[in-house]
Protein backbone atom coordinates (compact mmCIF):
# COMPACT_ATOMS: atom_id res chain seq x y z
CA UNK A 1 0.00 0.00 0.00
CA UNK A 2 1.24 3.51 -0.80
CA UNK A 3 2.02 5.91 2.06
CA UNK A 4 -0.58 8.60 2.65
CA UNK A 5 2.11 10.84 4.17
CA UNK A 6 5.79 10.84 3.30
CA UNK A 7 8.52 13.31 4.16
CA UNK A 8 11.53 12.66 1.94
CA UNK A 9 15.16 13.83 2.00
CA UNK A 10 14.49 16.40 4.70
CA UNK A 11 17.30 18.78 5.64
CA UNK A 12 16.89 21.31 8.42
CA UNK A 13 19.32 23.45 10.38
CA UNK A 14 18.85 26.06 13.08
CA UNK A 15 21.62 28.59 12.69
CA UNK A 16 24.80 26.60 12.22
CA UNK A 17 23.41 23.48 13.88
CA UNK A 18 22.36 20.85 11.37
CA UNK A 19 19.41 19.04 12.98
CA UNK A 20 18.25 16.85 10.10
CA UNK A 21 20.12 15.58 7.06
CA UNK A 22 18.43 13.37 4.54
CA UNK A 23 15.82 12.26 7.08
CA UNK A 24 12.56 10.64 6.06
CA UNK A 25 9.23 9.55 7.47
CA UNK A 26 6.26 7.74 5.97
CA UNK A 27 3.07 6.03 7.03
CA UNK A 28 0.47 3.92 5.24
CA UNK A 29 -3.27 3.89 6.00
CA UNK A 30 -4.32 1.40 8.67
CA UNK A 31 -0.93 1.21 10.33
CA UNK A 32 1.05 2.73 13.19
CA UNK A 33 4.54 3.96 12.34
CA UNK A 34 6.73 4.69 15.32
CA UNK A 35 9.61 7.17 15.22
CA UNK A 36 12.01 6.47 18.06
CA UNK A 37 15.11 8.36 19.03
CA UNK A 38 16.93 9.97 21.88
CA UNK A 39 16.41 13.54 23.07
CA UNK A 40 17.78 15.99 20.55
CA UNK A 41 17.93 13.48 17.69
CA UNK A 42 15.53 15.60 15.62
CA UNK A 43 12.25 13.67 16.09
CA UNK A 44 10.12 16.70 16.87
CA UNK A 45 11.66 18.71 14.04
CA UNK A 46 10.91 15.92 11.57
CA UNK A 47 7.34 15.50 12.87
CA UNK A 48 6.69 19.25 12.64
CA UNK A 49 8.01 19.37 9.08
CA UNK A 50 5.90 16.35 8.06
CA UNK A 51 2.82 18.07 9.56
CA UNK A 52 3.47 21.43 7.88
CA UNK A 53 4.15 23.26 11.14
CA UNK A 54 7.81 23.93 10.25
CA UNK A 55 9.43 24.58 6.88
CA UNK A 56 12.38 22.37 5.87
CA UNK A 57 15.53 23.83 4.30
CA UNK A 58 15.05 21.27 1.57
CA UNK A 59 13.07 18.11 0.99
CA UNK A 60 9.52 17.21 0.04
CA UNK A 61 6.34 16.36 1.84
CA UNK A 62 4.01 14.11 -0.13
CA UNK A 63 0.39 13.76 0.96
CA UNK A 64 -1.93 11.38 -0.84
CA UNK A 65 0.35 11.41 -3.87
CA UNK A 66 0.56 15.21 -4.03
CA UNK A 67 4.04 16.72 -3.80
CA UNK A 68 3.82 19.76 -1.54
CA UNK A 69 6.82 22.09 -1.58
CA UNK A 70 5.92 24.30 1.38
CA UNK A 71 2.80 22.84 2.97
CA UNK A 72 1.14 24.50 5.96
CA UNK A 73 -0.62 22.71 8.80
CA UNK A 74 -3.93 24.28 7.73
CA UNK A 75 -3.58 23.07 4.13
CA UNK A 76 -2.61 19.53 5.24
CA UNK A 77 -5.44 19.56 7.74
CA UNK A 78 -7.93 20.30 5.00
CA UNK A 79 -6.58 17.20 3.23
CA UNK A 80 -7.20 15.07 6.35
CA UNK A 81 -4.12 15.37 8.58
CA UNK A 82 -4.15 16.10 12.31
CA UNK A 83 -1.01 17.08 14.23
CA UNK A 84 -0.60 16.60 17.97
CA UNK A 85 2.54 18.52 19.03
CA UNK A 86 4.85 17.64 21.90
CA UNK A 87 3.64 20.77 23.69
CA UNK A 88 0.07 21.78 24.49
CA UNK A 89 -2.55 21.88 21.77
CA UNK A 90 -5.41 23.37 23.77
CA UNK A 91 -5.92 27.05 24.49
CA UNK A 92 -5.65 27.57 28.29
CA UNK A 93 -8.65 29.87 28.79
CA UNK A 94 -11.09 27.87 26.67
CA UNK A 95 -13.21 25.02 28.05
CA UNK A 96 -12.80 21.42 26.92
CA UNK A 97 -16.39 21.41 25.59
CA UNK A 98 -15.74 24.58 23.59
CA UNK A 99 -12.69 23.01 21.96
CA UNK A 100 -14.76 19.98 20.98
CA UNK A 101 -17.56 22.30 19.80
CA UNK A 102 -15.08 24.06 17.52
CA UNK A 103 -14.16 20.69 16.01
CA UNK A 104 -17.84 20.00 15.32
CA UNK A 105 -18.25 23.45 13.76
CA UNK A 106 -15.59 22.59 11.17
CA UNK A 107 -16.58 18.92 10.87
CA UNK A 108 -20.33 18.44 11.27
CA UNK A 109 -19.86 14.65 11.17
CA UNK A 110 -17.40 14.77 14.11
CA UNK A 111 -18.11 12.12 16.73
CA UNK A 112 -17.68 14.33 19.79
CA UNK A 113 -19.62 12.33 22.37
CA UNK A 114 -18.05 9.02 21.37
CA UNK A 115 -14.52 10.49 21.44
CA UNK A 116 -15.09 12.19 24.81
CA UNK A 117 -16.47 8.99 26.29
CA UNK A 118 -13.71 6.78 24.89
CA UNK A 119 -10.97 9.06 26.25
CA UNK A 120 -12.83 9.52 29.56
CA UNK A 121 -13.06 13.30 29.27
CA UNK A 122 -16.87 13.54 29.21
CA UNK A 123 -16.77 14.73 32.83
CA UNK A 124 -14.32 17.52 32.01
CA UNK A 125 -16.32 19.42 29.39
CA UNK A 126 -16.95 22.48 31.60
CA UNK A 127 -13.32 22.77 32.71
CA UNK A 128 -10.91 25.24 31.19
CA UNK A 129 -7.91 23.44 29.76
CA UNK A 130 -5.48 25.28 32.07
CA UNK A 131 -7.08 23.46 35.03
CA UNK A 132 -6.44 19.98 33.58
CA UNK A 133 -3.67 17.65 34.74
CA UNK A 134 -1.14 16.58 32.12
CA UNK A 135 -2.88 13.22 31.69
CA UNK A 136 -6.32 14.83 31.35
CA UNK A 137 -4.91 17.32 28.86
CA UNK A 138 -3.35 14.57 26.75
CA UNK A 139 -6.59 12.58 26.79
CA UNK A 140 -8.55 15.69 25.78
CA UNK A 141 -6.12 16.42 22.96
CA UNK A 142 -6.49 12.88 21.68
CA UNK A 143 -10.28 13.19 21.98
CA UNK A 144 -10.11 16.32 19.80
CA UNK A 145 -8.01 14.43 17.24
CA UNK A 146 -10.29 11.38 17.33
CA UNK A 147 -13.43 13.51 16.95
CA UNK A 148 -11.86 15.17 13.91
CA UNK A 149 -11.62 11.72 12.26
CA UNK A 150 -8.36 12.34 10.42
CA UNK A 151 -7.01 10.18 7.60
CA UNK A 152 -3.53 10.70 9.00
CA UNK A 153 -2.61 11.39 12.62
CA UNK A 154 0.85 12.70 13.54
CA UNK A 155 1.46 12.58 17.31
CA UNK A 156 4.72 13.90 18.72
CA UNK A 157 5.63 12.27 22.06
CA UNK A 158 2.04 11.67 23.21
CA UNK A 159 3.14 9.48 26.15
CA UNK A 160 5.45 11.99 27.76
CA UNK A 161 4.78 12.95 31.39
CA UNK A 162 1.62 10.88 31.84
CA UNK A 163 0.87 7.99 34.17
CA UNK A 164 0.93 4.34 32.93
CA UNK A 165 -2.90 4.08 33.07
CA UNK A 166 -3.23 6.98 30.62
CA UNK A 167 -0.40 5.60 28.49
CA UNK A 168 -2.30 2.32 28.15
CA UNK A 169 -5.54 4.13 27.24
CA UNK A 170 -3.83 6.35 24.66
CA UNK A 171 -2.02 3.36 23.16
CA UNK A 172 -5.34 1.48 22.81
CA UNK A 173 -6.96 4.47 21.09
CA UNK A 174 -4.04 4.93 18.69
CA UNK A 175 -4.26 1.25 17.76
CA UNK A 176 -8.01 1.55 17.26
CA UNK A 177 -7.57 4.60 15.01
CA UNK A 178 -5.17 2.60 12.84
CA UNK A 179 -7.51 -0.41 12.79
CA UNK A 180 -10.24 1.94 11.55
CA UNK A 181 -8.04 2.90 8.58
CA UNK A 182 -6.21 5.98 9.87
CA UNK A 183 -2.47 6.31 9.21
CA UNK A 184 -0.85 6.95 12.59
CA UNK A 185 2.69 8.24 13.19
CA UNK A 186 3.88 8.42 16.79
CA UNK A 187 7.22 9.57 18.11
CA UNK A 188 8.75 9.02 21.50
CA UNK A 189 11.48 7.51 23.58
CA UNK A 190 9.43 4.82 25.34
CA UNK A 191 10.41 2.17 22.79
CA UNK A 192 8.87 -0.81 24.60
CA UNK A 193 5.44 0.87 24.96
CA UNK A 194 5.56 2.22 21.43
CA UNK A 195 6.53 -1.14 19.97
CA UNK A 196 3.38 -2.70 21.44
CA UNK A 197 1.22 -0.63 19.09
CA UNK A 198 3.66 -0.29 16.18
CA UNK A 199 3.53 -1.93 12.77
CA UNK A 200 6.62 -0.20 11.48
CA UNK A 201 9.62 1.36 13.22
CA UNK A 202 11.84 4.23 12.10
CA UNK A 203 14.93 5.08 14.12
CA UNK A 204 15.99 8.70 14.27
CA UNK A 205 19.63 9.08 15.22
CA UNK A 206 22.32 11.68 14.56
CA UNK A 207 19.90 13.76 12.51
CA UNK A 208 18.96 11.07 10.04
CA UNK A 209 16.54 8.14 9.94
CA UNK A 210 16.83 4.38 9.47
CA UNK A 211 13.91 2.12 8.62
CA UNK A 212 14.05 -0.85 11.00
CA UNK A 213 10.90 -2.72 9.88
CA UNK A 214 8.53 -4.42 12.32
CA UNK A 215 9.04 -4.07 16.11
CA UNK A 216 10.48 -7.62 16.16
CA UNK A 217 12.96 -6.73 13.43
CA UNK A 218 13.84 -3.52 15.29
CA UNK A 219 14.53 -5.43 18.49
CA UNK A 220 16.81 -7.70 16.52
CA UNK A 221 18.72 -4.81 14.95
CA UNK A 222 22.11 -4.98 16.61
CA UNK A 223 23.23 -1.37 16.19
CA UNK A 224 19.84 0.01 17.28
CA UNK A 225 19.74 -2.29 20.29
CA UNK A 226 23.25 -1.37 21.35
CA UNK A 227 22.89 2.38 20.88
CA UNK A 228 19.32 2.73 22.12
CA UNK A 229 19.10 0.24 24.97
CA UNK A 230 22.82 0.31 25.75
CA UNK A 231 23.38 -3.44 25.75
Amino acid at each position, binding site marked *: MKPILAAESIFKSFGRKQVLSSAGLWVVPGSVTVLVGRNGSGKSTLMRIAAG*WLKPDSGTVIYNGRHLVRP*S*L*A*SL*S*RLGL*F*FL*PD*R*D*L*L*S*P*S*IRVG*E*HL*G*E*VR*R*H*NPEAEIEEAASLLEVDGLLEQKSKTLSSGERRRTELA*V*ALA*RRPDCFVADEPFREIVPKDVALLARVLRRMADDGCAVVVSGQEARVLFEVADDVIWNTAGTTHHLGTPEEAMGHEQFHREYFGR
Partner: protein
Amino acid sequence: MMRLPGWTFTRLIIGRSLIVWFGVRLSMLGLGSGLDLDYRVSLLVVLVAMGLATFEGRRLNEHLFLGNLGVPISALIVMAAIPPLILEVVLGLVGP
Protein backbone atom coordinates in the same frame (compact mmCIF):
# COMPACT_ATOMS: atom_id res chain seq x y z
CA MET B 1 -13.27 29.66 0.69
CA MET B 2 -11.02 30.52 3.65
CA ARG B 3 -12.02 28.82 6.89
CA LEU B 4 -12.56 31.11 9.89
CA PRO B 5 -12.75 30.23 13.59
CA GLY B 6 -16.06 30.02 15.44
CA TRP B 7 -17.37 32.64 17.85
CA THR B 8 -15.45 31.35 20.90
CA PHE B 9 -12.08 31.89 19.25
CA THR B 10 -13.15 34.96 17.27
CA ARG B 11 -14.20 36.68 20.52
CA LEU B 12 -10.85 35.83 22.06
CA ILE B 13 -8.82 37.11 19.10
CA ILE B 14 -10.80 40.36 18.75
CA GLY B 15 -10.85 40.99 22.51
CA ARG B 16 -7.09 40.51 22.76
CA SER B 17 -6.49 42.77 19.79
CA LEU B 18 -8.64 45.51 21.37
CA ILE B 19 -6.79 45.25 24.69
CA VAL B 20 -3.43 45.52 22.94
CA TRP B 21 -4.64 48.53 20.92
CA PHE B 22 -5.80 50.30 24.10
CA GLY B 23 -2.49 49.43 25.74
CA VAL B 24 -0.47 50.87 22.85
CA ARG B 25 -2.53 54.08 22.69
CA LEU B 26 -2.44 54.54 26.48
CA SER B 27 1.33 53.99 26.48
CA MET B 28 1.68 56.65 23.80
CA LEU B 29 -0.40 59.07 25.91
CA GLY B 30 1.70 58.20 28.95
CA LEU B 31 4.91 58.85 27.05
CA GLY B 32 3.61 62.30 26.17
CA SER B 33 3.20 61.83 22.44
CA GLY B 34 -0.48 62.72 22.79
CA LEU B 35 -3.20 61.46 20.50
CA ASP B 36 -1.07 61.50 17.37
CA LEU B 37 -3.43 60.80 14.48
CA ASP B 38 -0.95 61.03 11.64
CA TYR B 39 -1.70 58.17 9.24
CA ARG B 40 1.84 56.81 9.58
CA VAL B 41 1.48 56.64 13.37
CA SER B 42 -1.94 55.01 12.98
CA LEU B 43 -0.48 52.42 10.64
CA LEU B 44 2.31 51.70 13.10
CA VAL B 45 -0.22 51.32 15.94
CA VAL B 46 -2.26 48.87 13.86
CA LEU B 47 0.86 46.85 13.01
CA VAL B 48 2.06 46.75 16.62
CA ALA B 49 -1.39 45.76 17.95
CA MET B 50 -1.75 43.09 15.24
CA GLY B 51 1.76 41.76 15.83
CA LEU B 52 1.43 41.50 19.61
CA ALA B 53 -2.05 39.97 19.43
CA THR B 54 -0.85 37.44 16.83
CA PHE B 55 2.20 36.55 18.91
CA GLU B 56 0.02 35.98 21.96
CA GLY B 57 -2.37 33.78 19.96
CA ARG B 58 0.57 31.66 18.85
CA ARG B 59 1.89 31.45 22.41
CA LEU B 60 -1.51 30.26 23.65
CA ASN B 61 -1.66 27.42 21.07
CA GLU B 62 -4.61 28.91 19.17
CA HIS B 63 -2.76 28.82 15.86
CA LEU B 64 -1.94 25.14 16.32
CA PHE B 65 -5.44 24.15 17.37
CA LEU B 66 -7.17 26.14 14.63
CA GLY B 67 -4.54 25.10 12.07
CA ASN B 68 -5.58 21.52 12.78
CA LEU B 69 -9.11 22.52 11.82
CA GLY B 70 -7.97 24.04 8.52
CA VAL B 71 -7.91 27.70 9.63
CA PRO B 72 -4.80 29.37 8.11
CA ILE B 73 -2.60 31.65 10.19
CA SER B 74 -3.15 34.43 7.64
CA ALA B 75 -6.86 34.47 8.58
CA LEU B 76 -5.96 34.90 12.25
CA ILE B 77 -3.53 37.72 11.45
CA VAL B 78 -6.19 39.55 9.42
CA MET B 79 -8.73 39.09 12.23
CA ALA B 80 -6.26 40.55 14.75
CA ALA B 81 -5.72 43.58 12.49
CA ILE B 82 -9.38 44.48 11.95
CA PRO B 83 -10.30 45.96 15.40
CA PRO B 84 -7.29 48.33 15.65
CA LEU B 85 -7.77 49.30 12.02
CA ILE B 86 -11.42 50.22 12.60
CA LEU B 87 -10.59 52.12 15.79
CA GLU B 88 -7.80 54.08 14.08
CA VAL B 89 -10.14 55.03 11.23
CA VAL B 90 -12.82 56.12 13.73
CA LEU B 91 -10.24 58.13 15.71
CA GLY B 92 -9.07 59.75 12.49
CA LEU B 93 -12.64 60.73 11.61
CA VAL B 94 -13.86 61.98 15.00
CA GLY B 95 -10.56 62.86 16.71
CA PRO B 96 -9.24 66.38 17.33
